[in-house]
């Protein structure tokens, strides 16, 4: 029978000890976890809070899109083709007479959802690879590193373009392909962190008492790499958003009539002179969302990972 770390600790704690009296005293004063302290510091980070406010506004707009939109996003009004912003159409209309504000609001859903899905996929591919490479080291590490170097030799946008051109465009393909070409930072960051964690006493002790690798990876390594990866997630979201938009702008990502910001911007390109609003507003929406993520990401990094720069 293998003795796991938790059962031993539990039986130890259950014994009444002399330290109990001191513990009682300490418990009387409010104890804050590291997590609470970090959150408190994040709340005082002015730039991060500004970014968070901006993002919350966009998230709320995305959630309430069907109720906030003055018109259905696909409704064409052929009497008002490329109409300038007015009281009737606050941000104007596009080439098919569709209300831009309604399309922008629905576009926020697509932008946020695709970014979240892609980052989750990157996390799911990158983090396990990094954990395994950093923990087992040796040949496995070399193999993972080489694979990461190979994928990272291509600028994500360019490789994604090449692959999407081959497999075909569309929302699903775009998300999968972008994730497959840009998981590398998650692997690198996780691997570096695991390499140093591996040398720490609590991991060495677990190895010494014969815990299985699975157990150590899940109970000791995984919880300790989460904050570093949280920082990376916030900083990756804006990059992903820009890549999706760029791909759609070039016509290889999300296809019209889906109200994707990059695709909408591209539809307005031929009318830049006479109807500049068609391209201007979707771009502004992308910019604001990305600025929001970057402001928040900076704050999250300052608070959780002050020594890290990437």
């Amino acid at each position, binding site marked *: 029978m293998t003795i796991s770390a938790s059962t031993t600790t539990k039986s130890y704690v259950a014994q009444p000890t002399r330290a109990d009296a001191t513990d009682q005293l300490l418990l009387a004063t409010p104890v804050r976890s590291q997590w609470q302290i970090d959150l408190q510091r994040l709340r005082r980070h002015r*730039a991060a809070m500004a970014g968070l406010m901006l993002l919350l506004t966009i998230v709320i707009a995305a959630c309430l899109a069907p109720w906030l939109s003055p018109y259905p996003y696909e409704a064409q009004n052929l009497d008002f083709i490329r109409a300038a912003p007015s009281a009737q159409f606050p941000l104007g209309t596009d080439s098919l007479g569709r209300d831009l504000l309604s399309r922008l609001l629905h576009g926020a859903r697509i932008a946020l959802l695709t970014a979240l899905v892609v980052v989750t996929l990157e996390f799911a591919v990158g983090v396990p690879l990094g954990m395994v490479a950093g923990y087992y080291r040796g040949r496995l590490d070399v193999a993972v590193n*080489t*694979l990461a*170097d*190979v*994928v*990272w*030799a*291509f*600028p*994500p*946008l*360019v*490789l994604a*373009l*090449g*692959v999407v*051109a*081959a*497999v*075909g465009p569309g929302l699903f393909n775009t998300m999968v392909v972008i994730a497959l070409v840009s998981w590398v930072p998650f692997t690198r960051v996780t691997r570096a962190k695991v390499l140093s964690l591996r040398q720490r006493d609590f991991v060495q002790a677990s190895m010494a008492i014969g815990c299985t690798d699975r157990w150590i990876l899940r109970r000791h390594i995984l919880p300790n790499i989460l904050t570093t990866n949280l920082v990376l997630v916030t900083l990756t979201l*804006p990059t992903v958003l*820009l890549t999706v*938009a*760029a791909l759609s*702008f*070039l*016509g*290889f990502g999300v296809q019209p009539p889906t109200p994707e910001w*990059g695709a909408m*911007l*591209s539809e307005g*390109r031929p009318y*830049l*002179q006479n109807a*500049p609003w068609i*391209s*201007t507003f*979707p*771009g*502004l929406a*992308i*910019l604001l969302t*990305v*600025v929001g993520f*970057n*402001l928040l990401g*900076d704050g999250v990094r300052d608070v959780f990972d002050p020594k890290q*720069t990437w």
Partner: protein
Amino acid sequence: MQQYLVQRLLVSVPVLLGVTAIVFAILFLTPGDPVRTMVDPRATEERVQEIRVQLGLDRPWPEQYLRWLGRVLRGDLGVSITAKRPVAQLIAEQLPFTLRLTLTSFVIGTLLGITLGVVAAVKQSSWWDHLITYTSIFWFSMPGFWLGLMLILIFGLWLRWTPISGYRENGALILPALTLALPQMGSLARLVRTEMLEVLGEEYMKTARAKGVRPFLLFYRHALRNAIIPVAVLLFLNVPWLLGGTVVIETIFAWPGLGRLMYQALLQKDFPVVQGLLLIIAFSTVVANLLGDITTVLLDPRIEQA
């Protein structure tokens, strides 16, 4: 140094092999028969089979890969399906335009970025610092395609100061170069600021100040020289992003170059050209990374060549 170089080069070999494997594999991702998409839809089955044998596409794929790799190593990147000309020749023709664009934007972005970063760090927490720090976030959050369109709209269509596309007219380079340079400027300014602040906090800076070194020398020789090392590395690491950015920017401004060649090849599903470009771009990334590592070792005598 020599040993380090050799070691570093050896590590690049499997990476480059992997790169060729990915580029080769892209062809197999296309649904349908590659020969069918190439020939006249009315061609008979015998004719299609004939072409397949002629191109070696009837062979098992490891053999196809090795043959293809052999040709690539000899500098033969295949023939463009639409232009019916060697891919290497097409790339060689467009390369000077891309170099002109990327180098110009590189110079603009680097000079502006370093200057702004140094000013922000030297005047830390001042009005200037806040202005620079916040506008840099703004600049590097900018989607390149939108920035390009806005510059066209403002300077090309409204003010009529610059041509809006093409490459022949005077000043046609300005807008595309700025579109590539401004986001770079933003990220660089931030990095330079952070690095400078770190160096300014070092003990040897205090010593230099105590000795009465003139402020200009203090910042230039003592601080910037040390802060610039990670910056130099970043400049090399930015090469692939710059090349990736050209696909969008060259397309918007109708600037001839590798990026636009890539876009057109993608539209026409001209996969030999796409593959050739991917190879060139990935190869230059690997070289840039190598140069970045070497620069670190050369600039920072504290690093032991492990």
